[in-house]
């Protein structure tokens, strides 16, 4: 526990939030763009 219940919720909640947001960003925006770019290169 970090100091008390609410600060623990804030600290670990923030970490979990960043993991979820980071994963969604990578999967939906960066990974797909990267694979689309590769496919387009392959076609050329």
């Amino acid at each position, binding site marked *: 526990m*970090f100091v*008390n*219940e609410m600060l623990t*919720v*804030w600290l670990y909640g923030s970490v979990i*939030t960043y993991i979820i947001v980071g994963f969604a*960003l990578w999967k939906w*925006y960066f990974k797909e763009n990267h694979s*689309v770019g590769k496919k387009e290169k392959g076609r050329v």
Partner: protein
Amino acid sequence: MDTVKLFTWIGFAVFLVIMLILGYIGTKKTKNIRDFAIGGGNLGPVVLGLSFAATYLSAATFLGYPGWSHEWGLTNLWLALAMIGGGAIGVLMVAKKIRLLNEEQKSLSLPDWLGDYYKSDLLRVGTGLILLFNVFYIAAQFVAGARIFEYLLGMDYRTGLILITVIVVLYVFGGGAFADIYTDAVQVILMAIAGIAIFISGIVIFWKNGISATFAGIADNLAAQDANLVAVFNPDSAHFYSIGAVIGAICIQWAFASAPHLFNKVLGLKNEKDLGKMILTYVITASLCVLVLFGGLYSRVALGSADVVADLALMEYVAWAFPAIVVAMFGVVILAAAMSTTDGLFVSISTVFANDLFLKFLVRRGHVRVDEEKAEKIALQISRLTVPVVGIIALLIVMKPPVYMGDIMWIGISGVAAGTLGPILYAVYGRRKASARAAEGSMIIGLVAYLILYFGGLIPSTMTAGAVATGIGIATMAILANVLATENKKIRLADAEQGR
């Protein structure tokens, strides 16, 4: 004149000159309504990501929300999670699909986009009118500006209110979205620096042999004042008094990410592939800015509860902890936060009148007969003239200062979300396109539900009432879309049988 006043006047003067120069450059680049609304759809991801963050994080983040921290204690940290989690996931869910759908439509705003997508003028006009709820949002930013002038310059609240209204209206009147987006980028960088400075300042001032010990000391001080100040759910809080209310706050932040003035930024991006970079820029910047919520907690620890106006709690702490020049700089940052959000809201409301109601409804449907070139010119004039009219209405709403400016702001956001999120989400995630009647039904029922729940006094929290009404709007959309699709299918089958 004391030192704080002198530095504040100098800081405001320098800031306004820089903003007016950027606004002037923006005016030069603004040739038509498309430039005014979405910067010609030709802007880069980092600038737009910064602008998105600046618009998402208004002066409420710097005055209203630390005020909540001061009044309700640690429970307000739920707000940080809701803003970073709910807001970011909301924009991640809709941004890409909205851009994709807009490649064909070339819409300029949310009413335009919904009206074109569902082919419904009722939806276009109705959504446009719902956006007028954002006058409350603008009014809240004016409160922030007036409070700053009141606190730092010793002005009367009403004089400060008139001054901030005049400054913002003159500034938006010229530049439109170009000025909005470039000045936002400058403003949010100042806001992020302020967020970091506030967070670290408390750790330095209340330092006790390590981070845990420091925060333990802060929590002990709060608990000694009132045990509820360290509770996970504070019964005294208007928004975080139960798990249901917290879920409501997260949901409404998620819904807020689709707000029309933010929507403009997604449409303004030059290259769709850059959406990821834009959202990443927003998440990083917003994360730094929301650290300012700790300022309200530090304020409570340092000053206690006596005679501190909630909306000025952060400024009281800054004045207590920092030298005069830094206090003045914080004043400028909060003014920047108010302006960066307000100009975006003005642009989105102006676009409603000029584009959605005039060009796309009155001219296109032949209610007003003018050639295309003249219509464009009139639209640009309407978009600019709307600014002072909306400014005056917003000013009148807050002539009497509210207890919490954040609550005034959320009246606007919740009303817009309740009326529009059902049709937006179904457009983005529905398996097949819903009928216009379903979207219109969702808009009307979502909005009416919000009016009854909040203004009828059934749910006192603006955020929770907004979240419940938004849920009702989304559920109505899902039900009507399926019911009407089945009805239409039956009618088509009956017609086919008759034909045979």
